């Protein structure tokens, strides 16, 4: 509304002349944020040959085992290597990259190691400023390193191995090879109580956690049906629909604009999250906010499934208060150059529209998120 005021329009005209748009994102490809690249690689930006891609993505798991220190060693290369693995969350990839930093480090004191790690995590964070879970994971690991002071250990080497061990444990949280430890498994189990027979669940986009939840419900012989939004422009919803159909779950695909139309029949909404912020709100794929608004106005519960490593010390005040994650949008027809395209890939849903968050720390109300964050970081 503010841009309607006369004074603001004048300000804007002035500013246009002297302020050039600065891009603070050091990512080499400014059109597509790195965050989105990872996402696209993991979830498969669905095109006509989406099946083939999905197949490739779920192919056999081969973990690269670096034998010698690559020269020159770069934490970003290491991170990129890990993040190519489809089941691995970005946060875990970051932690593994930092673990590699520790492994190859030539530091001889804890202080040196800490400084090296700090530099590495800073470069990781600045490599992709738009990814929330990457930033959160780096912060979390740094927190762990600084908190477990070297004084507790008798010598430096055991401290080092302790840190690496810790990083591995963290990695296992999201690793599918260790289902008992997996955060997703915990979340899936927690959410089973909320899925009742005969319910209709609306799902937006493709989230591995949400898929795990639905899969477990199907395995428990619950009777439910799922509405998948299409998830333009990546059509991630189509992929989820396909996966669910394989499990014999009744699925219906909606176009994104049919959410309000279908909301009558829906009993609950399930979404994942890219990041859970300090206010208790979530940052997630574009369209989550409007679904939350519709669900809120029709008094339908909205549940968020998110691992605790997505908790970030951010506090967006409104939609524009985030570093936008830019993505390409294919409209199928050429768009005149004068027409602007809103290409942000995600939005912020304020906490008052969320009912509950399912995390590996338990089922939380949005206001508890800040409690957890305070205990983690302060």
């Amino acid at each position, binding site marked *: 509304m503010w841009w309607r005021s006369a004074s603001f329009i004048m300000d804007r005209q002035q500013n246009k002349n002297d*302020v050039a748009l600065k891009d603070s994102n050091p990512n080499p490809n400014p059109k597509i944020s790195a965050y989105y690249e990872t996402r696209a690689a993991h979830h498969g930006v669905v095109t006509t040959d989406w099946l083939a891609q999905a197949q490739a993505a779920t192919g056999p798991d081969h973990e690269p085992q670096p034998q010698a220190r690559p020269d020159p060693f770069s934490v970003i290369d290491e991170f990129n290597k890990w993040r190519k693995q489809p089941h691995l969350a970005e946060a875990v990839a970051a932690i593994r990259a930092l673990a590699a930093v520790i492994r190859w480090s030539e530091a001889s004191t804890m202080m040196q190691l800490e400084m090296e790690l700090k530099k590495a995590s800073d470069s990781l964070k600045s490599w992709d400023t738009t990814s929330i879970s990457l930033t959160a994971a780096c912060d979390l690991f740094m927190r762990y390193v600084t908190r477990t002071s070297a004084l507790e250990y008798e010598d430096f080497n055991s401290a080092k191995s302790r840190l690496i061990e810790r990083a591995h444990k963290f990695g296992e949280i999201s690793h599918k090879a260790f289902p008992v430890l997996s955060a997703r498994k915990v979340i899936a189990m927690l959410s089973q109580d909320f899925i009742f027979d005969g319910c209709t669940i609306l799902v937006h986009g493709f989230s591995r956690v949400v898929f795990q939840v639905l899969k477990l419900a199907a395995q428990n012989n619950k009777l439910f049906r799922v509405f998948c939004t299409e998830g333009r422009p990546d059509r991630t919803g189509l992929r989820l629909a396909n996966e669910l159909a394989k499990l014999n779950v009744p699925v219906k695909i909606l176009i994104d604009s049919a959410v309000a139309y279908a909301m009558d029949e829906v009993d609950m909404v399930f979404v994942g999250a890219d990041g859970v912020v300090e206010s208790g709100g979530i940052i997630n794929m574009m369209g989550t906010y409007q679904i939350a608004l519709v669900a809120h106005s029709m008094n339908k519960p909205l549940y968020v499934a998110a691992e605790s490593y997505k908790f970030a010390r951010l506090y967006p005040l409104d939609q524009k208060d985030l570093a936008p994650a830019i993505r390409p949008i294919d409209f199928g027809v050429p768009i005149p150059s004068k027409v602007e395209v809103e290409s942000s890939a995600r939005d912020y849903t304020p906490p008052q529209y969320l009912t509950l968050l399912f995390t590996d720390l338990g089922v939380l109300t949005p*206001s508890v998120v800040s409690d957890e964050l305070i205990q983690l970081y302060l």
Partner: protein
Amino acid sequence: MDAPRVTPTIADPKIRRVVFFASDSSATVLPQPQQLPETHPSGNRHVASGSFDPSENPNLATAIEKKEEVPQSSSKPLKAKTTKAERRALQEAQRAAKAASKGEGSKAVTESDRAAPVKSIKQSSEKKGGPSYASGATDKKAGDRPLEKDRKKDAPPPQSQFDDKSRMEKARKRAAVNPTESRNRVELFQHLPQYEHGTKLSNVESKFFNLGLVHPAVLEVGLRYSAGDISGGNARCIAMLRAFQDAIRDYCTPPEKVLVRDLTSKINSYVSFFTECRLLSMSMGNAIRFVKSRIVNLPLSHSEFEAKAALCSDIDRFINEKIILADKVIVRHAFTKVKDGDVLLTYGVSCVVEMILLYAHELGKKFRVVVVDSRPRLEGQALIRRLVAKGMSCTYTHINAVSYIMHEVTRVLLGASAVFSNGTVYSRVGTSCVAMVAHAFRVPVLICCEAYKFHERVLLDSICSNELGDPDAIAKVAGRMDVNYLNNRASEDNLKLLNLMYDATPSDYVSVIVTDYGMLPPTSVPIIIREYQREHLLL
């Protein structure tokens, strides 16, 4: 004040002075109550050392009242519910009586009460205005000090209830500053002090030589409070702490007394003096609580000199870490929310908000500032003058226009006097209105507040706890001779002037609270209190 004292004493079992920890210590130090009138000439001292009636010092952290059932209890029947008119009449009568018996102290009551058996009941105070935080009586053995120390951290300081006649009567007799109460008291706010403005100062002056036991630095600060020289939560708190520092430096333990106990009672007497000058803010209550806990936790091995030095440096640390550094951290945090092209709205003057604006301006952010102001204080004019001098582009408007101006605003930055554990923000009157309009326009509201101002109490409305300003200030318009309709009407019976100083903003209207612990949702205030209150005390 050593006029012969009447001793109504035990004949009045309705009131049991709640004896706080200062008193059980003094029980060992002070002479027996019977000798008191002779040995202690000054009434003031007794206020401090003898008993603590919470009505005298509402914000004292030590003042604990534990709720207790009052079934059969008092030999005297409970005060019957009277109508407001009746109570007013009664009050008038009492006031007259008070004027007659002005010189009499009430100390004897308290002392003999204390000597009386431990178990006695204080009648729960009856209020007209609203719920009270502190009511009921305490049943405390003089011996359970450690337990009490624990409790004093948890329990909120009681608010004095100015419509509780018997208590006020006693408090008044003891008070150093005895202002005249205004005639037309606003019904809903009878539990708050409503005085004729300007009577405080003259009263202090007339009693100047009776104030002998108040340290000059404390006296100065107190008088400046009541004159309105020092305003703003942080400034008041720092001034108070500095005065305490001076007082502690000049303090020497009297013979046959223990520093820990005697100094605490000294501080208590200073606090009650401050309260008489102007109601303490919540943040000052927290600071006092800190000082007292430092005194209580002094190691016994310290010599007097060491103890005093330790206390002074503790107070210095509190000022530095909890106020000055906290402000710097808040500025850093809030700065991240200021973007180029923003229009920031602020209401009244908050020194943190001003620091944020200056900092963002220095770092070259391009933004506009809207300063909303309101009568009668018009504090915003000073702010706008300073901002304009720095070359910021500013808009100045009154609160009447807030709904017009709000649609071009992108962020609302507000200060706070206190934040309560339900997220309610207690701030300059008008803040609630600005926040509500901002909420309706979907403009994010940022509350900038140091964590030492967080308070574990729950506040639901602006009535229970508030401060009333000079009613004349709203009746008169400075510089407008033609607006004089209310000039001599203040004494009319059917006209009541209400000049509230603070209001409560519900947490729904607050998007974020920026504190030294980072940016938090209002729901996290109790978490900060839970995790860090102890640290506040121990630092």
